[in-house]
Structures are given as structure tokens and as C-alpha cells.
């Protein structure tokens, strides 16, 4: 079994933390994993992407091939669409529906139209939900929760365990908040 996931968003939105949680769970589950990250200049408010590959057999390429991603998991709707060529036909787009408008020509209509045309799409109003629950810094974990039912190769319980693990050094309060965020996210998933 294999799962290819494209994580995307805008620099600073916390996509690498999602990758860290999934990566921790994968290693604990004895899965093979490759995760290509982007560092450096593009992190300054630009588009960021990370390819995450999980498999029970050997993985060769660090990069996800075109047309092979099972999931695009995105903190920002336009950034989800940018990587559509990587998605296979039955793949899922799971994305925040809250635009991050740090550019002057944000194509709001085009983004809405394109998202609506996809067959397998889960949109989560991350801005609203994270604000309502007073957890702006855990928006990324809410999104991970929404994806938990689709990831498949890892169970939600394995992901929860890794949330505990990854946030442990930041204190119990932070762990609890992120577990709650995950649970809230699960409510928006399938």
C-alpha cells in the first residue's frame, strides 16, 4: 500500500508541522517515508509545497510524480489548485477555504469555480473554525483532522499519538489544544 500526499500553503502557515506529525506516525508504524521540503527564500510569504510519500514497500523518488498523489492537503485554496496536476483521478483535495490574500490580484472567482468543479473535495473554513475555537495556531492540525479519514495508511489514533509526541516538548496545554483541534477537524472530514 502507498499514499502520496502533496502538502501546500503559504510560507508560515505550518504545513511542515503537518508533515512532521504524519512523518512521526509513519516511522512509528514502520512505514517507509520520503518527504521533500522547501526551505530558504520561498518561505517568506511565498507558495510552499512539500511532497509526502508513505508506503509499506521501498520508495525511490523523493518527489511525487505527476498524476499520482492520493491527497492534496492545503492550508490555502489557491495553493491547493496549483498542484492539481499531481493528483490522480480518484484523489482528494482537502483544503482550507479561507484565502490568504497577500497578493494584489488574488483570483477569488477562479478559485471558487475550480474547487466546485472537482469530484472529491473537502473544504474547511479554517479561519472561522480556528477563531471560534480560539486556536489560531492550530489551524493546520484542524486540517489534518479533516484529512484523517482519507489518509487510510495511518489510523486517526496513530495520528493522535504523534500529535502528543510532536508537541510534548511544548507542554501539556499545547498538546491538549492540538488534540482538540484534530478532533474538531475530524468532524469536517469523511
Amino acid at each position, binding site marked *: 500500500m502507498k499514499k502520496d500526499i502533496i502538502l501546500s500553503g503559504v510560507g508560515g502557515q505550518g504545513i511542515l508541522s503537518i508533515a512532521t506529525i504524519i512523518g512521526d506516525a509513519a516511522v512509528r508504524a514502520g512505514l517507509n517515508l520520503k518527504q521533500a521540503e522547501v526551505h530558504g527564500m520561498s518561505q*517568506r510569504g511565498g507558495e510552499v509545497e512539500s511532497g509526502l510519500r508513505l508506503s509499506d514497500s521501498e520508495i525511490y523518488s523523493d518527489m511525487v510524480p505527476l498524476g499520482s498523489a492520493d491527497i492534496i492537503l492545503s492550508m490555502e485554496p489557491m495553493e491547493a489548485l496549483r498542484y492539481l496536476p499531481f493528483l490522480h483521478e480518484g484523489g482528494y483535495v482537502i483544503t482550507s477555504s479561507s484565502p490568504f490574500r497577500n497578493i494584489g490580484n488574488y483570483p477569488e472567482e477562479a478559485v471558487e469555480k475550480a474547487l466546485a468543479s472537482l469530484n472529491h473535495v473537502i473544504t474547511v473554513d479554517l479561519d472561522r473554525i480556528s477563531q471560534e475555537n480560539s486556536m489560531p495556531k492550530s489551524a493546520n492540525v484542524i486540517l489534518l483532522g479533516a484529512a484523517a479519514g482519507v489518509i487510510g495508511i495511518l489510523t486517526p489514533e496513530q495520528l493522535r499519538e504523534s500529535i502528543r509526541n510532536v508537541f510534548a516538548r511544548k507542554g501539556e496545554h499545547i498538546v491538549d489544544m492540538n488534540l482538540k483541534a484534530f478532533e474538531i477537524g475530524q468532524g469536517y472530514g469523511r
Partner: protein
Amino acid sequence: MTQVKLLLGDEAIAEGALHAGIKGVYAYPGTPSTEITEYIQHSAISQENGIHCTWSSNEKTAMEAALGMSYAGCRSMVCMKHVGMNVAADAFVNAGMTGVNGGLVVVAADDPSMHSSQNEQDSRFYGKFAMIPTLEPSTQQEAYEMMAYAFDLSEKEKLPVLLRITTRLAHSRAAVRISAEKPEAVRKPADRDRSAWVLLPANAKRKNLALTAKQPHLEQLSAESPFFRISVPDHFATPENKDALPGNASVSENAGALTGNAAASLPKGIIASGTGYNYVMENNALEAGYLLMKISQYPVPAEAVRQFSKECSQILVVEDGQPFLEEQVRSIVGGDYPVKGRLAGDLPRTGELNPDCVAQAIGKKTVPVYKVPDGIVPRPPALCQGCGHRDVYIALNQVLAGYPESRVFADIGCYTLGALPPFCAIDTCVDMGASITMAKGAADAGLHPAVAVIGDSTFTHSGMTGLLDAVNDRSNITVVISDNLTTAMTGGQDSAGTNKFEAICLALGVEKEHVRVVVPLQKNMEEITRIIKEELEYDGVSVIIPRRECMQTLARKKRQSSRKQD
């Protein structure tokens, strides 16, 4: 005893170096190499073993310090991005001439596709140039294992060893099996052989002959490397040729001997290196009937390539970076032998490889189902909100609007983003330190006002000597050292000159009244623009230092202190 850790390629290299018993790492931050040194800085082993791991001022000082450590009998490592090799080149190439005492490994992280760089030069050319062994791992696990191998090789051959990686390996994470043993630093007596270390012409001539004579031996080592491999498709793998696989030397001189094919129906071959090998394997090239040679060490094992070519009807070279291997394979097989790759147009001539272009080159097309929807626009990086560089550019733009002939010579760092809207404030960005010297040259040609914009870390990396040139010539330039108290672009490493900039400028001979310090904030705009105007009007060298901490490091410090209070 082993343990499994999830590591970036960079981190795997750091673990490998720690377990190989290094006494020091010397480096200047540069994407995609930075995380190697950072990992060592944060490791418990480096504290317990007293491993040197603070940042160097630039790649040349790093290379030289590492050579000194090697001279003194300890293992040392130097890390840099590819363009850093240009800065270190003087010391690097001559280290091939002197040779080493303690093992010395230079790690160069190339950035094909220029994710965060000014060019896509391939550091393997530097290894060939210096005539030293060069290693190229394909995976994070190999990167880890190659470090111990590299240090042993360096000490055995008494030569520095270059390890070359690319962004995709440096910044990709995988589970790596590493040793759980506690490493001990290797220590030999300091060298005493002056005839090796004093490169007077008489000594250098002798060393040059010896190094040149050693090349066939180094080629042989490349073919004997544990990371070298020939793989054949299963249906060719008879018991006899299976035995012959790793020991390529035993492959017969007769065409087709390996696969039992007549010359007329030989299979196609692939020679792959580095991450290129991964894309070949991803696309099941063996199942598609290709013979596959994996090269992980240079100089290119010419004899092995020649013999391999006899087993194949053609060779596709798959390598990330410039066509370094492809050119050499062409010259080894010679004549009309079909060699495919980047030069031949089967793979893109520039940019990093990916599984898709390699699939196409081996005749396996991948067709994406979805396209990027119409209307999706790029989202370029930008200076952070609240960043002091923003205020610097606002002020400069305001003042320079009154000087239509002015030019702004900028430099390498976050502030290069001043080239993009809304600022569009800079005219050049070429290499580390070039802002000051290019402004000087332009001023020498009569251009006025010639303004240099350089960051604090870039100034101590390569700006100081240029400023001395300008002072000595009384060049009419205005230098802005935009000081955010850190090396911000690469993630906030210590900056070598923090708290020393006024003293450095004065010591280099800039006049006291023309070293001006300001705080780049909107509320100070009137003062800042007035000072810029005054210094533009001064006929000589002026330095303006806008100083305010980087927003990123400030936020990180706040997070850390609030966590401590919890």
C-alpha cells in the same frame, strides 16, 4: 546497535560526520546546506566531545580552518552551498595539493532549478578540477553511510574528499538507520612534513605530479566503491552474471557476455548518479529491460563505463545538475556510440530532474489527469510584514526619486526581495559582497549617486575588503549596511559582525562623521531620509547602518521566553 531516525539528507550527513568522529565543522549558512551545521550545533554529541561548530565568516575561512584542523590530526568537515565553493575555491583546490592529515570532507550542496540561488553550477566540476575523490549519495541512508567511508578514504589517500548533494536530497526526509554507539573523536599527531604543506613551486611541482599520477588509482576506487552497482533485469540474471554484478571488473570483454545477448540485440543501458538514480528506479527501468549502472564516486570509473557500454546498445545518462557525467561518458565510449541525456535533449538541458522527465526519457509517459486551473497566479516570496528592510527601501525610494541617475547595487539576502513590487528598489544582485565593489566601480566611472545595499552577515562575509578598496580610493559611494542582527535568509543564524559594524567601518578608514546609525521605523522616516540625502551629497565613502532586529528571530525569542515562563 542501530536506531532509526527521521532525517533530512543534510541531517543524515551531520549524523554520519558525528559518528565518524569529527572534531569540528566549519561552515557559512547557505541553502540547501545550512541544516548540516545546525544539526551538529544542537546535538548532544558535539557538546560532550567538544566539537567545534560555530559559524565561520565565509566559506574560505571555513575551508582553511578545517584544513588547519586536519593538519593538526583531527577529522574536520566543511559545508557550503554550491556558490560557496567559488569563495572557498582557492583553499579548496590547494588542499588537493597539500593533501590532508586528519580526514577532511567538504560538503557542497548544489541547487539545480535555483530554488534559492543565483546559478545552478555543478560542484562535481570542482572535484575534477582539484583532482580529488568526489562522492554523490542517492539516498539519505547513503548520505549517512558515506560520511564514515569518506573520512576513511580521505585519511587512506591523504586527500580531501568532496561530497556533493543536491537540494532534493538535502531537504528531503526519510527514515535512516544510524549507529547508536557513542563516537569518539579521531586524533592523530600533527603533521610535520613541510615539503607537503609549504606550496613553494619546488614542492608544488612534485605534489602536482604525484596527484596527477594518482588519478588511475582513484578511478579504480570509484569502481570498487561499496556504493557502485550494476543491476540487470531479472530475466538476465543467470547465476553466473549475478555473481559478476557488483564486481564489475569481472564483466567480460565480449559484447553481450553479461546478458548472453548477441551484439545485434543488446539491451539499452542507463548510467545514473545521485537523485537521478532514484527517478530511474521509481520508473521501474529494470522491469522495462534496461541495464543500470549506478555511479556514486568520481573520478568516473572509465574502464567500468567502457565495459558496460559493450553490454548495451546505447546509454542514457541520468544525473542531477549539469551534464558532467554525460560529457565524460561520451568521451569514454567515443565515436558513434549513442549516448543520451541532457546534452542529447532526451532530458531537459537545465533544472533539476524529476520522476516525470526521467519517465519520458526511458519511454514511459506519465499523463496528468488535471491541469492547473485557469486564473491561478504566482505567489512570489516577499519581505515579512514589519521587516526593517522595508523601511530602508521606503526611505531609499523616497530620496532617490530626486536623483534619476542613481543606481542601487544590492546583495545576497532577504533584502534582495527589494527587487520585487512594491519596492522595485534595486538594480543589481550578483554575488556575496558585490554591492560595495560594483558601486565603487560604477562611481569610478562617474555614476552618481552609487548606492550599495548589503546585509550585516553579507558585509562580514565579503563586503569588508571591498569597503577598504573604496576608502583607499576615496570612491564616491554610499553604503547601506542593513543590519537585522542575524543571517536571516537562511533561518536566523548568528551573524559574525553583530555589535562590531561601526568599529569595523572606522577601522577600515571610513570617517567618523560619515558612519551613521539609524533605526528603520516609519516614525523615524524624516530623520532617515535626511541622513541618506546628506550622505549622498558627501563626496566620499559614507556608511549608513539602519539597525533593527529581524522579525523572525524576534518572534522566535519571544516564543522561547514565553515557553520558559510556562
